[in-house]
């Protein structure tokens, strides 16, 4: 970040930052379906991807959008789709398929206020659990949560890198506020940005679905005769629809390749977590209120610390546990009716008193004043 030049500073919208980051990360395919508040990502990529030789297409629905993205990934290219809650619902089955077939791709869910059509243009954070448990069966997801335009940019690149590194779908769980607001963003120069590409097989290799934690991934048309299936399969892609051992081996490996990396995947910002009486665990747009609230609380002599989650799943247990070991009270502000709250409570395991602060409706943010009030109540 030291070598920045003036022209690397922009005033961008969150969705625009996400789209530009995708291009930088090497995305060559986007398929989407219009939905507020994610449409700007599709609009921006419709202009940008053809310029870099990529394809952006509007499909007939979200089922088709994510299907096409997964197809493009098997054609050997980085692919993305973007949607909001209702579309994210429709994509769940294919997210499971992408997990089962170990297909790298990025799914952006710009959260809006549900359930159902709810308040379609307003902000909410109600898809936290859906991003973890949305598809059926035993699976694990990697979910990132930006809280600024800068992080929409950084975490989009990170999402592509993780998808390629772990050969799995990655969910960027944004929200209407970070997606629609405009603010200053600093773009690092290209050579300082790490871009990871999937591991390709050697010509003699035949096992693309096993024998190692993260097997190499061929593309179609490369002569590997790859057999891709969402049914239980062996290391060579051959279907086993009834064999207990094959199923255990596959599904346990797929979950383990993510869960075993939980500590490495934890991406959090912490402040005084080793020396505080009151802690805050926060993520996404809601976490924008903590800085002012903490400053004011400290001015009043309160000992306060926080953990801000940039990665939500796998839940950054270790670092949150650290907070629960020092703080007596932990406040969890969320624009939903308690989702991360229960995770914090589970990790805390009775050590700290976990206090919810929930607000839904109208897209109204939890303000620093409301958070401060809760801090003072807890003190």
């Amino acid at each position, binding site marked *: 970040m030291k070598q920045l030049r003036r022209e690397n500073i922009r005033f961008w919208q969150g969705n625009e930052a996400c789209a530009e980051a995708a291009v930088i990360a090497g995305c*060559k*395919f986007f*398929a989407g379906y219009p939905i507020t508040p994610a449409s700007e990502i599709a609009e921006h990529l419709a*202009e940008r991807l*053809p*310029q870099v*030789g*990529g*394809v952006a*297409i509007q*499909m*007939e*629905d979200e*089922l*088709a*959008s*994510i*299907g*096409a*993205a*997964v*197809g*493009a*990934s*098997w*054609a*050997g*290219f980085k*692919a993305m789709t973007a949607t909001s809650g209702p579309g994210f619902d429709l994509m769940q*089955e*294919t997210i499971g*398929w992408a997990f089962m077939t170990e297909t790298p791709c990025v799914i952006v869910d710009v959260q809006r206020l549900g359930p159902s059509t709810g308040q379609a243009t307003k902000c909410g954070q109600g898809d936290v659990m859906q991003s973890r448990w949305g598809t059926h069966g035993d699976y694990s997801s990697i979910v990132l949560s930006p809280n600024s335009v800068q992080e929409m940019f950084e975490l989009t690149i990170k999402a592509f890198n993780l998808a390629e590194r772990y050969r799995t779908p990655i969910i960027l769980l944004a929200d209407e506020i970070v997606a629609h607001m405009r603010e200053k963003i600093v773009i690092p120069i290209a050579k300082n940005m790490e871009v990871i590409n999937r591991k390709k097989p050697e010509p003699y290799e035949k096992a693309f679905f096993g024998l190692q934690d993260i097997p190499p991934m061929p*593309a*179609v*048309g490369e*002569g*590997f*005769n*790859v*057999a*891709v*299936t*969402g*049914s239980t399969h062996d290391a060579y*892609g*051959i*279907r086993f629809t009834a064999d207990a051992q094959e199923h255990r081996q596959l599904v346990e490996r797929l979950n383990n390749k993510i869960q075993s990396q939980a500590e490495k995947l934890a991406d959090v910002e912490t402040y005084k977590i080793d020396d505080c009486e009151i802690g805050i665990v926060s993520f996404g747009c809601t976490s924008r209120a903590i800085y002012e609230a903490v400053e004011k609380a400290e001015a009043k002599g309160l000992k306060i610390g926080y953990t801000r989650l940039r990665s939500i799943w796998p839940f950054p247990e270790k670092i949150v546990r650290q907070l629960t070991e020092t703080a007596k009270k932990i406040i969890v502000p969320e624009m939903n009716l308690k989702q991360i709250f229960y995770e914090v409570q589970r990790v805390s395991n009775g050590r700290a008193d976990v206090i919810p602060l929930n607000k839904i409706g109208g897209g109204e943010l939890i303000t620093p004043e409301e958070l401060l009030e809760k801090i003072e109540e807890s003190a």
Partner: protein
Amino acid sequence: MSKSFSVKKYLRPLLLPFCSGCGGITVMSEFLRAANELGYEKLDKFVFCSGIGCSSWIPSPHFVADSVHTLHGRSIPVATGIKLMRPDLHVIVFGGDGDIVGIGLSHFIHAARRNLDILVIMVNNMIYGMTGGQVAPTTPFKAKTTTTPYGSFEYPLDAAKLAVTAGACYVSRWTTAHPKELKDSIKKALRMQGFRFIEAVSQCLTAYGRRAGFKDSWEMLKWFKEKAIPIESAEVMSEKALTGKIVVGEFVRRKRPTLVETIYRTIKEAQK
């Protein structure tokens, strides 16, 4: 073409999962014969996409080729992503009637509308076979199925006509009682561009025929032969006279700009 041709050269040495007398085997072998007659020694320039259902197991994982076995109804979207990024490959979709024109119907219509360069081969057995014989969008009126025990009270969909209306470049329908015509039609479609659709009406004794009163697959094939009306004759017949008939032949063959052409032209323009 050598006389000793065996479709085995295109197949992995696995047991086929189909019931004896299944029409899907005919469609599989006619496709492979067509590929052989066109001179494809290997299927390495092909990608086979399929959904969920018996006929989706025709290519996956049996063909020695790239095969992508997707979700129920989603083979065409996945094929879209593959074809747009690898326009040099032949992308073939195998699916059943439930897969292609039941749960996946909107993708089918839109792919035809866009003129996506893929060949869709729909094995129409008029039933949900893999799940045990439930009524399908293609089940004949009054037919008894496990979910229409008193006979179906719905009229079936004419997928071939729909494909023509939606904009396909090539549409044909044959039955498994017309293997040569089916093979020739596949050969013709493989030489063309744009959205191509072949409907192969196929017998499923296990999940359909038994309940409809057929004793064996052979009887079902005879039924296809009897009910088949060439499209040229059908054109002058009344709707009433055509009820219960299977119109076979070539429904359309035309040229339209394909999606690959229009998309890559757009990309070229954007890069200027």
